[in-house]
């Protein structure tokens, strides 16, 4: 396996993961499950930036997506009262 084959294999896996996690984040009824799917989407998007040789953008995406977005969404869900679907 040379580097070009590895690059295209990574692109296929990352594309499948992005599509699946984005559809899951939209269609989950439970709010916490949707937030976790958003965290997975951010993880795979950071991996895409990483594979495309941009490690600084990947660091920014990891910091914002993994830590800030998840924590702030969870604080917002905790401080509001909504009809949450418990499975």
């Amino acid at each position, binding site marked *: 396996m040379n580097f070009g084959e590895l690059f295209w294999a990574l692109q296929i896996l990352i594309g499948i993961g992005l599509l699946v996690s984005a559809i899951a984040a939209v269609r989950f009824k439970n709010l916490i499950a949707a937030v976790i799917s958003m*965290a997975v989407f951010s993880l795979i998007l950071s*991996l895409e930036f990483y594979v495309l040789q941009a490690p600084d953008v990947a*660091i920014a995406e990891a*910091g914002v997506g*993994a*830590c800030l977005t998840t924590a702030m969404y*969870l604080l917002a869900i905790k401080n509001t009262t909504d009809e949450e679907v418990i499975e």
Partner: protein
Amino acid sequence: MTAISVFMWALVLLLFSAMLTLIRLLLGPTIPDRAVALDSMTTTTAGAMVIYGVITKQAVFIDVALVYAVLSYIATLYIARYLVKKKVGIA
């Protein structure tokens, strides 16, 4: 088969196992199942990032894996605090 080729196969297998944990995240009946799936997926992907840094021979790429490991720990901690407080009823 050179050493770099072995690293490339290991990288593809790690990402494939990350996709298998994504299946658990989709099917998981309860929220703690999904939280554990997210945690194992971030750990697997951090290992894949380190192996990609070894393949391309650039030391800058290791830092991204370190930063992501620390930040995913904080995200998992927030999810766990939310679940504990909701179940016990402290807040």
